């Protein structure tokens, strides 16, 4: 169990990096070389190595769910104690690797993006990155829902701080506020759900026989009881599941709480890559996967998850089609891709969704860092219509970006093809076998593939192909090794990660093994962890959620989505190839305005906040001052003092007040004593 003993260090090392950077920022900002990047890099290297060690230990069959810190001890029987605990199992080990790897690469990339560009306030930047990395890793290893919520909120804080990094401009602070507020709205439901889980089960643990998913299963089987507040058990659990889902929708930027993510692009691009693409946004989806044993009991909630996911995938993909800024395309694309993961989870594809989480982290971090490289080259101009022809000038960025784009569009054999295909396949087979909601979600997800192919290649062509459309694009700024190295690492991973789980190939050839299925299926021979395996989830989906599987070839399903992706990509190539492409957006007619305005989602939310809630607050304030306080003043001037006497009282000197007060106090006590009859 040696590796597991060091597991807390995975979280604590980046936290130490944070403390070092804060200390430097407060005392001597120049004291750290590279503005604090080096401690951060050292810490994330340490976290990555320890994560790899933990993963090897998990591979060897070890699992752990242990309390590391008692936050609030139980003083009496029947009262839950609130603890911080670690849960180390295949899912957590996988996510630890993803988070620490991307965090490391983003730290390195920041040397090129922040340090070399002469930014000020670097210790603050690296402090934010360090705190974020620590909080995200803490979230990943969280062993119960309370701890998950704690770190869920902390990553939200870091997101706020880093989006608002350039606080002297008006845009970033506003975007930061919106990001925190919208996700806080989601977290409100999560917190209600969390409190409800405690009230219902008396525990919020994820693993073990006393964990709440296992208890819920037992309650539904009639083998245990829980406090369900007068509801039928499954109904009440569904309510709890939907409440927790509120936090998921906020963090993973799912409709209708997706509006903060495009604004969050105001932050530095490495932050977008780390927080708003690969990791923090994944926290919502990861949470559902983490408590999948609970969700698998609740068919209604699963249907909601699938529908929200499918809808978001399509809805966000359509908005990408008209965007001008490269980071905006990527932001809406991120929303869309998390929609696929939700679709996968809702459709019963636990492994598929986890797979897509993994590949997406790689290729979307790659695309954001590639966009960052382009933005450096373009002197911080993000408009794709000012780019063009960057292919020759920056080949490393181009080829890695292309690898990421092929993965995003879902072109075989790049990683995104395998994972998105598997998500859609799971939705199809479960949908066909009698789950119409899932089938509808599948249809939306499938249609989104077309749009994804289109917007991805529109982005690639506008940025890298054709003739340069501005002076800047003709003579771009060079980028150094610290930018190229992370791109190459992620480029290789985005190309090859699909081999982890090439289901259609396995179906035809019988090899390679479906590594990820195997990884997530086993409990390592420890029965306490049997309830956290994909095998168990499959069982629950069948028996509790009533999911059946239709017989469909994964090869055929894969060919359908591949064909759609190619059609979309082909359409983009036809429209936007050539030295000087035309925008073509006017052909969309009225739809263009709607798409440019993001379906007016931002407008109605801003209206709700600014034109409804704030005026309501002002009205209440008027009522408070006029009626409530007015009443108080009226009472006091009528019964206690006449207006004239009040003026007299107010014009005295301080010693008079002291005398008056003392007298008043004495009179009060004497009067009360007389009423009480003490002097008789």
């Amino acid at each position, binding site marked *: 169990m040696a590796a597991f003993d060091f597991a807390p260090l995975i979280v604590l090392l980046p936290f130490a990096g944070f403390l070092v950077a804060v200390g430097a920022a407060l005392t001597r900002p120049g004291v750290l070389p590279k503005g604090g990047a080096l401690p951060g890099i050292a810490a994330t290297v340490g976290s990555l190595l320890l994560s790899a060690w933990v993963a090897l230990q998990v591979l060897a069959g070890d699992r752990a769910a242990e309390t590391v810190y008692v936050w609030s001890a139980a003083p009496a029987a029947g009262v839950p104690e609130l603890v911080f605990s670690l849960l180390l199992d295949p899912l957590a080990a996988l996510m630890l690797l993803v988070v620490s790897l991307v965090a490391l690469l983003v730290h390195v990339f920041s040397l090129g993006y922040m340090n070399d560009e002469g930014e000020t306030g670097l210790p603050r930047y690296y402090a934010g990155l360090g705190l974020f990395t620590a909080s995200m890793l803490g979230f990943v290893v969280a062993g119960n829902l309370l701890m998950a919520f704690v770190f869920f909120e902390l990553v939200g804080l870091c997101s706020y701080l880093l989006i608002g990094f350039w606080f002297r401009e008006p845009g970033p602070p506003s975007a930061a506020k919106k990001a925190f507020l919208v996700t806080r709205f989601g977290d409100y439901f999560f917190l209600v759900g969390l409190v409800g889980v405690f009230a219902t089960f008396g525990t919020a643990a994820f693993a073990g026989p006393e964990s709440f998913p296992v208890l819920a299963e037992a309650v539904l089987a009639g083998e245990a009881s829980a406090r369900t507040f007068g509801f039928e058990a499954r109904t009440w659990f569904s309510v709890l599941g939907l409440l927790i889902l509120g936090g998921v929708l906020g963090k993973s930027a799912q409709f209708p709480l997706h509006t903060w993510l495009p604004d969050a692009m105001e932050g530095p691009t490495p932050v977008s890559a780390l927080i708003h693409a690969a990791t923090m946004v994944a926290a919502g989806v990861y949470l559902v996967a983490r408590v999948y044993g609970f969700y698998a009991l609740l068919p209604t909630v699963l249907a909601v998850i699938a529908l929200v996911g499918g809808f978001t995938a399509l809805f966000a993909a359509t908005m990408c089609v008209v965007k001008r800024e490269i980071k905006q395309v990527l932001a809406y694309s991120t929303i869309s891709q998390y929609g696929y993961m939700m679709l996968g989870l809702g459709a019963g594809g636990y492994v598929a969704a986890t797979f897509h989480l993994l590949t997406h982290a790689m290729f979307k971090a790659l695309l954001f860092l590639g966009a960052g490289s382009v933005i450096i080259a373009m002197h911080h101009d993000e408009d794709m219509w000012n780019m063009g022809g960057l292919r020759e000038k920056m080949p490393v960025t181009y080829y890695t970006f292309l690898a990421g784009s092929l993965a995003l569009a879902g072109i075989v054999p790049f990683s995104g093809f395998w994972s998105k295909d598997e998500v859609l396949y799971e939705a199809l087979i479960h949908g066909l076998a009698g789950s119409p909601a899932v089938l509808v979600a599948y249809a939306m997800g499938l249609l989104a593939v077309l749009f994804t192919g289109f917007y991805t290649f529109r982005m690639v062509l506008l940025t890298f192909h054709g003739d340069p459309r501005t002076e800047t694009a003709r003579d771009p700024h060079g980028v150094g090794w610290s930018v190229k190295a992370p791109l190459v690492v992620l480029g290789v991973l985005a190309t090859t990660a699909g081999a982890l789980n090439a289901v259609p190939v396995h179906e035809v050839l019988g090899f390679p093994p479906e590594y990820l299925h195997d990884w997530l299926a086993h409990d390592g021979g420890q029965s306490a962890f049997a309830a956290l395996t994909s095998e168990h989830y499959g069982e629950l989906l069948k028996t509790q959620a009533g999911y059946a599987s239709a017989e469909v070839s994964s090869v055929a399903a894969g060919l359908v989505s591949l064909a759609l992706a190619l059609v979309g990509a082909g359409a983009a190539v036809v429209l936007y190839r050539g030295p000087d492409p035309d925008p073509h957006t006017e052909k969309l007619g009225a739809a263009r305005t709607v798409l440019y305005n993001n379906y007016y989602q931002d407008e109605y939310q801003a209206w709700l906040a600014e034109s409804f809630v704030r005026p309501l607050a002002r009205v*209440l304030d008027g009522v408070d001052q006029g009626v409530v306080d007015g009443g108080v003043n009226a009472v006091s001037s009528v019964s206690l003092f006449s207006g004239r006497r009040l003026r007299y009282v107010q014009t005295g000197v301080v010693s008079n007040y002291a005398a008056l007060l003392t007298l008043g106090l004495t009179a009060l006590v004497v009067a009360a004593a007389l009423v009480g009859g003490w002097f008789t």
Partner: protein
Amino acid sequence: MILAALMAVTAAAALVTFLVPDEYAGGAAAAFSALPLVGSLLLWAGFDGRGNALVDGEVAFETVSPWLTLGGYEVSWHVGLDGVSLPLVVLTAVLTTLAIVSAWSAIDERRSQFYGLVLFMETTLIGVFVSLDFLLWFVFWEAVLVPMYLLIGVWGGPRRKYAAIKFFVYTNVASLAMFIGFVALVLAAPVQTFDLPTVAAALRNEQISALLGLSPGALRTAAFAVMFVGFAVKVPVVPFHTWLPDAHVEAPSPVSVLLAGVLLKMGTYALLRYNFTMLPETAAALAVPIAAVAVLSVLYGAMLALAQEDLKRIVAYSSVSSMGYVILGLVAYTLYGVGGATFQMVAHGLISGLMFMAVGVIYHSTHTRMVGDMSGMADRMPVTTGILVAGAFGYMGLPLMAGFAGEFFVFVGSFASTTLPFAPVFTATAMFGIVVVAGYLLLAMQRTLFGPFRLDTDYEVQEAPLRDTVPLAVLLLCIVALGVAPDLLFGMIKDAVVPILQGGGL
């Protein structure tokens, strides 16, 4: 004896401070206030009490000596500490010292009188929290008003007279109501003493007779109601809150720190000690209206905070909102509910103290508190801004800070309450306050701290000196420490809450 010594030292410090020349008064007061601070920390370290002081408790540092007899009723000097009162004594000592240090910049006239009054107020506040005899307690309870009245009325802003008189009259009338209510209960109970544990035992066993034509049940309800209203003014609970913003706006910042940080807790502390400990059945019977008032305080206070343009009014109204959670926790009558409410008293004391202090630091540099008068202060005051942002997130209930711990305990306790009908509905509604608080604090921060620098007053703005930022940093550390390790205080709180709850549960 040790508590008497603590209070005597503090009172002596107050007297000496009155005599110290103005230019040394600040330093002397800070040095003197270190005595009760160290004393209270020693009490915390040496605390050996168990259970609740009023119900089956082993009271720590207890002293009982007969004082006088009033109409056959014994009044005694009965002081002592349990897990509920000790955290509040520590809070008082910590905040007083920090408020004194923060006043070095803020107060520049009649300094020795100012610091003397602050120390005198500390004496009376400690008296409120340690007294276990009603009449003794009531003397301290009333005595707190005198220094506070003078601190607002002499050192306050332009409308200080109005605010001070409003504060004094309002809370004094409330005290009268509460006094009558409690004395009526004592007269109807089979006791010949004002000793609180004795009275509590009698009342909890429902051994009271009819009085003045009221049946025992009606008397309990009536007494509960007037006592509740009397304490609710102090908390304050909507709709008795309107004295608070006026008092805060006019009071100098260090006084606001103590007003929000400690004085409001007198109200919730008294509610816990009297209403909820002595009349649990009545509290349960009235649970729905009380919870409604609590939810109203949370949401209405938060909405009012959203409408304010003055930073101090924002923090003042958010206090109304936060104290609503305390009421909710009390009425839930579960371990985490009542314990969380007590913890929230301390947490809110520290956080609101930090916020008022930080607003004071900004005011001292800019000479304005209006949100619209400034923007981009982060550029000129990075350290103050950093601490203010951290404090604001504490107010929003960011995990691993004290506010989250207090609110989370209250929410867990109240959601699971069996005393309160529709507990999940009340809890979930009140919890929406965590969204509104984020709304108004983030909006205010965005407008004042971030964006391009602009200031509409003619002052050079630069980073505050260390003597202003160190108290802020100390408070922030306390807030984080209690958020990471709430059991530093919550352990003894839970122990003291268990006996008053009949039965277990969350």
